[in-house]
C-alpha cells in the first residue's frame, strides 16, 4: 500500500467542484502545452489548489515504442528498490529525472522520474499479452512497493500531476515545452479526501488517462466489481476506479469506447424500452452483462486513449461540459470560457446530452481496441 500516512486518501472526508479541459487534433498535428495551461487557468476558481494534472499524448516520438513510466518516489531508498524491480522485468532504454522548475506554490514534491521501458518477452510470452504484463507490473509496484507510485505507464504519452493549482503544476513541469496532439487538464477541488501527489488527476493505466469532475456514489459497488477482475484500487479515490473500468471494458473485453460509455452511463430502462429493436437488444445486453460497472452520481469525464479522446457526462447530466470544434481541432471543457480563451472563433459549440459520449479519433480511426 502506498503511503497511507495520516491525512492521506481515505483518512478524512471533506465535503465540497473541479475543472476539466481537453484539446485534440484529429489530424495528429502536434502543438505545445501552452494552450491547455491557458484553458485550465481561466477556470482557476473551480479548483482549490489541492491537485492539478495533465495528460499529454504524442510527446515522446523518439521513444514511441517504449512504455513511458512516470514514477513518484518518497525517497532514494524507495527508488532503489523500485529500480531493482524494473531491471528484473524490463529493458530500460532510458531513464532520467523529469525536468521541473521551482514554483513558489509547489512544495513537498516527491522524487519524480521517468523510465522508457520494454518488458522482457520471455517473462510473459505464452502466458499473457504484453500490455497485460505491463499492467500487472504497474499494480505490483503500486501496491507492494512502499513509497513508489507509477502514475503514467502508456506509450508516447505522459501524465504530469501534483498538489497545487493546475497552472502552477504546469509551470512546475514545464509543460509548455512538450508538444503533443492531445492534452487534457484537471484542476482539483477534492471532495472526499485530502490531496496528495498520487491522488491528483489524471488517473492512468497504460494508454488510458481519466480526468473527472464529480463524485461517484456507486464507488464501492464499482470497486468491489473491478477488484474481482484483478484490479487493485490503491487510492480510495473514485476516479481511479473509472480508469480501471475503462481499461477492463475497452482493453480486456474489447468493447468500443462508445459501448464502454454506454455501460458506464447506461440509458434508463424506460429509455431502452423505446429504442428500435436492434439498439434495444444491444443496450439490454450491456446493462445486464456489466451491471456492476454502471457509474452513478454526478460526473463529467475526459478519457484519453490510444489515438482518441472521449468525453462523457453522467446520464442525468449533473455536471457541466461543453464541446467546441474548429477545423480538425476538438475542445472539451467544463466551461465555454475555457475554450473561447484559446479558440475565440469556433465552427460549432454545444453541450452533449447526459450519457451521450463525445468521441474523436486520429484520422477517423475506429474507437475499438482491436482496430488500431
Amino acid at each position, binding site marked *: 500500500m502506498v503511503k497511507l500516512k495520516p491525512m492521506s486518501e481515505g483518512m478524512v472526508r471533506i465535503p465540497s467542484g473541479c475543472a476539466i479541459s481537453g484539446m485534440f487534433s484529429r489530424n495528429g498535428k502536434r502543438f505545445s502545452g501552452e494552450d491547455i495551461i491557458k484553458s485550465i487557468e481561466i477556470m482557476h476558481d473551480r479548483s482549490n489548489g489541492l491537485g492539478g494534472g495533465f495528460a499529454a499524448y504524442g510527446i515522446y516520438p523518439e521513444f514511441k515504442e517504449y512504455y513511458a513510466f512516470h514514477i513518484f518516489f518518497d525517497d532514494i531508498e524507495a527508488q532503489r528498490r523500485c529500480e531493482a524491480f524494473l531491471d528484473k522485468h524490463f529493458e530500460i532504454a532510458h531513464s532520467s529525472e523529469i525536468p521541473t522548475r521551482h514554483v513558489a506554490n509547489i512544495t513537498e514534491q516527491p522524487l519524480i522520474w521517468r523510465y522508457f521501458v520494454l518488458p522482457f518477452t520471455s517473462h510473459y510470452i505464452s502466458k499473457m499479452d504484453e500490455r497485460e504484463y505491463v499492467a500487472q507490473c504497474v499494480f505490483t509496484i503500486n501496491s507492494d512497493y512502499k513509497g513508489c507510485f507509477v502514475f503514467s505507464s502508456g506509450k508516447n504519452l505522459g501524465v504530469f500531476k501534483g498538489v497545487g493549482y493546475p497552472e502552477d503544476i504546469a509551470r512546475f513541469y514545464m509543460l509548455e515545452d512538450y508538444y503533443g496532439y492531445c492534452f487534457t487538464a484537471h484542476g482539483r477541488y477534492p471532495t472526499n479526501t485530502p490531496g496528495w501527489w498520487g491522488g491528483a488527476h489524471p488517473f492512468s493505466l497504460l494508454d488510458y488517462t481519466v480526468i473527472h469532475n464529480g463524485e461517484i456514489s456507486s464507488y464501492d459497488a464499482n470497486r468491489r466489481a473491478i477488484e474481482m477482475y484483478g484490479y487493485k484500487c490503491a487510492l480510495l479515490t473514485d476516479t481511479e476506479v473509472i480508469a480501471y473500468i475503462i481499461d477492463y471494458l475497452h482493453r480486456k473485453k474489447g468493447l468500443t469506447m462508445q459501448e464502454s460509455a454506454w455501460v458506464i452511463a447506461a440509458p434508463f430502462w424506460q429509455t431502452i424500452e423505446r429504442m428500435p429493436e436492434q439498439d434495444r437488444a444491444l443496450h439490454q445486453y450491456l446493462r445486464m452483462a456489466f451491471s456492476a460497472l454502471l457509474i452513478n452520481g454526478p460526473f463529467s469525464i475526459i478519457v484519453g486513449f490510444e489515438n482518441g479522446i472521449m468525453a462523457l457526462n453522467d446520464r*442525468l*447530466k449533473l455536471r*457541466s461540459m461543453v464541446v467546441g470544434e474548429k477545423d480538425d481541432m476538438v475542445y472539451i471543457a467544463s*466551461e465555454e470560457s475555457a475554450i473561447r480563451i484559446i479558440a475565440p472563433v469556433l465552427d460549432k459549440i454545444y453541450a452533449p446530452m447526459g450519457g451521450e459520449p463525445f468521441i474523436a479519433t486520429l484520422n477517423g480511426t475506429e474507437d475499438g481496441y482491436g482496430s488500431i
Partner: protein
Amino acid sequence: MRDVSPTADVLSISAEGLSFKELNDKLRATNATEIVINNAAGQRYIAAGAEGRRLTINGTPGNALAAYMDGAEIIVNGNAQDAVGDTMNDGRVIVHGSAGDALGYGMRGGLICVKGCSGYRTGIHMKQYQDKSPVIVIGESCGSFLGEYMAGGTIVVLGIGLRGQAPVGNFTGTGMHGGEIYIRSDEEPKNLPAQVSIDTASNLDDIRGHVRAFAQLFGCDADELLSGNFFVLRPNAKNPYHSLYTQYLR
C-alpha cells in the same frame, strides 16, 4: 424595474485578465447606469444583486450571471454559461446566443430570454408569490428536466428551427407542482412524468406578451410563432407525490 436613461453616458470596461472579484468590484464602484463589458472570459457572478442599470456583455460571462439580480437589464452578445439568473428577483436577461445548465434556478421574478438553446434543468425550482411571477422564454430548445421541481412562473419554449419536433429532452416537469410550461411543437414531449398533465393550449393569452417581447428582441415574426401548436404542461392535481421516485412514468 427602474428606467435606464437611453442618453446616459456609457462606461466601457475590459474584463481581459480580470478575476471575478476585480471585475465585480469595478462594477460596484461605479454609479454608471449604462455599462459595456468587453472580453468577458468566464468571470462569475456578474451583476449579482444588480439593479437600475443596463449591462451589455461581449464575450463569455461566467457562471451565476445575474444571480439575485433585482431589476437590472443584462444583454449578452454571445453564449452564457451555467446558472444564469439564480434566484433572480427582478429585471431582464437577454442572451443573443445559448445558455448552459440550470438557467433561472430558483428564479422568483423578472424575465430571461434566450435566442438559442438552454441546457439541462432550465427553470429548476422556479417559484411565484403574489405579484412576483418569473418568465423564461427559450427560442430553440432545452435539455432534459425542464421545469424540474417547478413551483410557479411561466416557461415558454418556442422550438424555432425544429420543424414541429418536441424542443425539449426527457422528463420535463419532474416534481413540478406549480406554474406553466408552454411548448411550441407538433409532437408531445417524450418521457413525461406522471406528475404533469399535458394539454393542447386552447388560448395563449398568458404568453402572448412574452412571445411578442421575444420576437421584438430577436427580430422574429411574432404572429408566425403564435400561430404554431402549443402544448401546456401543468402539475397534475390528480397525482399526488406518494411515489415520486418509484413510479416515475405515466
